[in-house]
């Protein structure tokens, strides 16, 4: 049995540096803070650059369908960088989850997504878990009516993939975003702003019949790779805090030299390294199409989602007053980390799933 590689390949390192370079140039932290006041002008050009210049929109789409044919390992590296820079782009919702949901479909929607000409979002609340009930709206004669709340990626999308209940069960329908009413939500995390989506007899095209497996797979892949975004968030919080405490002086000393803080940061660093292993493992298992995928996903989510929150909370505390300001970006990471903790199920939901997977039931 050969062991999965939990490090980064040269190709993955190259991909990381091109994403990082682009984000350094075009994802200005002050513009990201402005998102919280409703100025979303940076979103479209940034996504266009990532989607088309770097080809990230089609990263996971097979080459014969117009994509780059890369694996979850590469998508994970991209998410680490997007998390690190708080880039407000619909990579996870469109390039990862929508393309996964559509993987087995014919039609030209997936090619449009791969080319970055179109952007899609799965119309489910961001808090939907891969394990529980999937909220769906009723479908009658190819028309959908109903409301889906707290949808991530909907504001950036031109097509919504809506789970609908038909006579034959759950089916996935495509609805043009212009045929839906999308009400922006004042979101805890404005860098991934949610929308409430209302459909009132909206015209819909059936894209996946019998869609439950495809939907669970999309949610599962989303959860597995969200761990890498959480890793990127945590890594930024650690690096930024260590950097700050190396230059901030009080009591005539650099405060990073006080042992109480050194020990907290050592624990955080140990946690971030652990999150790195968990996130990397989930991505590697997905890429290898290993049967362990459900377990690896639950472990990665159960670990990384709490760790990212801890990292962001430590970053705020250890920055002192400046960490509490609107001007310093730490709050963006705290809000993202907390929202990510709830996205696709809390750590507790993933642990509950694990209990079943590893035969540790609560009831006798």
């Amino acid at each position, binding site marked *: 049995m050969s062991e999965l590689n939990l490090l980064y390949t040269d190709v993955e390192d190259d991909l990381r540096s091109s994403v990082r370079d682009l984000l350094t140039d075009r994802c200005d932290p002050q513009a990201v803070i402005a998102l919280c006041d409703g100025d979303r002008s940076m979103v479209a050009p940034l996504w266009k650059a990532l989607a088309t210049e770097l080809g990230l929109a089609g990263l996971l789409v097979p080459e014969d369908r117009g994509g780059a044919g890369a694996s979850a390992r590469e998508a994970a590296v991209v998410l680490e960088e997007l998390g690190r820079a708080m880039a407000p782009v619909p990579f996870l919702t469109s390039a990862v989850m929508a393309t996964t949901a559509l993987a087995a479909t014919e039609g030209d929607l997936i090619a449009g997504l791969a080319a970055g000409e179109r952007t899609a979002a799965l119309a489910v609340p961001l808090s939907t878990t891969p394990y529980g009930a999937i909220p769906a709206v009723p479908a009658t004669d190819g028309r959908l009516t109903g409301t889906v709340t707290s949808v991530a990626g909907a504001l950036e999308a031109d097509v919504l993939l809506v789970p609908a209940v038909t006579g034959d069960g759950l089916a996935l329908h495509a609805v043009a975003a212009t045929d839906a009413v999308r009400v922006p939500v004042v979101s805890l995390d404005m860098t991934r702003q949610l929308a409430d989506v209302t459909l009132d007899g909206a015209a819909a095209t059936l894209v996946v019949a019998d869609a439950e497996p495809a939907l669970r797979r999309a949610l599962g892949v989303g959860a597995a790779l969200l761990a890498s975004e959480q890793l990127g968030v945590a890594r930024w919080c650690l690096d930024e805090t260590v950097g700050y405490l*190396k230059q901030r002086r009080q009591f005539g000393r650099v405060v990073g*030299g006080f042992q109480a803080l050194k*020990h907290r940061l*050592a624990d955080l660093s*140990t946690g971030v*390294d*652990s*999150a790195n292993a968990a996130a*990397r493992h989930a991505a590697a298992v997905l890429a290898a199409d290993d049967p362990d995928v459900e377990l690896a996903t639950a472990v990665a989510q159960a670990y990384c989602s709490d760790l990212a929150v801890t990292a962001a909370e430590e970053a705020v505390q250890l920055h002192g007053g400046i960490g509490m300001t609107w001007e310093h970006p730490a709050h963006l990471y705290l809000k993202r980390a907390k929202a990510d903790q709830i996205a696709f199920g809390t750590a507790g939901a993933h642990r509950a799933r*694990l209990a079943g997977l590893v035969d540790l039931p609560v009831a006798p």
Partner: protein
Amino acid sequence: MTLEDLRQRVEEFLATHDPATTERLEFLRARYDAGLAWVHFPEGHGGLGLPQAWQPEADGLFAAAGAPDNNPNSNVIGLGMAAPTILAFGTEEQKRRFLRPLWTGEEIWCQLFSEPGAGSDLAALGTRAERDGDEWVVNGQKVWTSSAHLARFAILVARTDPDVPKHRGMTYFLCDMTDPGVDVRPLRQITGEAEFNEVFLSDVRIPDTQRLGEVGQGWAVATATLNTERVAIGGRATPREGGMIGLVAQAWRDHPERRTPELHDRLLRLWVEAEVARLTGTRLRQKLAQGRPGPEGAAMKLTFARLNQQLSGLELELLGEEALRYSDWTMVRPERVDFTSRDAGYRYLRAKGNSIEGGTSEILRNIVAERVLGLPPEPRVDKDVPWKDQEK
């Protein structure tokens, strides 16, 4: 050489050395000579210069063929600390003399580092080694020496120059534990056993050919040992649910009547952490596959100590009334150290040592903070003071 070539080498070896009919020691020596002992060691010293990450492959094939192993748990310090240090700093002659019987388990090793006055501050040690022609004469006292009662050799750090600041005046030796000046006395620990000892060294004579590294270079060599120690303690390859978590999970499965939601929550949290620690260990081993370990092992050891303590504590609560009984307080001097052996009560008590031995968790946090994160070092009042003038 590819992984496939390695597999083939093992198969060829097994074809000519039938584990069922070959005598155990003969088999192990031949395995060493074939370079299949620790494949990342150089040719001629039990290896083939291959990536360390390939070792499990070879071990797996040997185990599957029913081959005897070298009983690694009986020589943890030898395999995990002495061997990599001898490989890195030893002369050809030292490597040839010591590595083979170390690997086969014919010679057990112990570590004579800590002293009553020098624990975390190992560099404060006062055991003296004075040169006498081609030999060194050693006097002093060591303490907490695990397995000294079983060991044939020891890695030893002693002071050779008291006139310079403490880090500069030490030298590293390979000490023969059968020397008449070595007196090993058991020290009983909280488990009831005497796993460690105190060791009195009186005019112990060590030939200069058993000095490892240069005179005065002892601190650098000792640091290399401590780095490998932390990897050895925290970074072993384990299967899922290997080690302490496996025992606690089994206790959960065996005792449905003891299950409560509160224990379940703690168990699952620890299960996740243990699995993540296992993956972190795998990742660390992949990183270290080339090159010598640096401070990265410190983080792994921190996690390992914390999890072992939390898990073994949880296990007692899970067992309830049964946990109120302890198997045996009789003072014995164990043959091997295995944290997961014996009963749950022993495991709980023995795990307390995990955050003390091999560098306390406080010291390891300092190491991670300073050497991984680059934060300022602890204030050192004694750094430039000659050892002999320091407050003891």
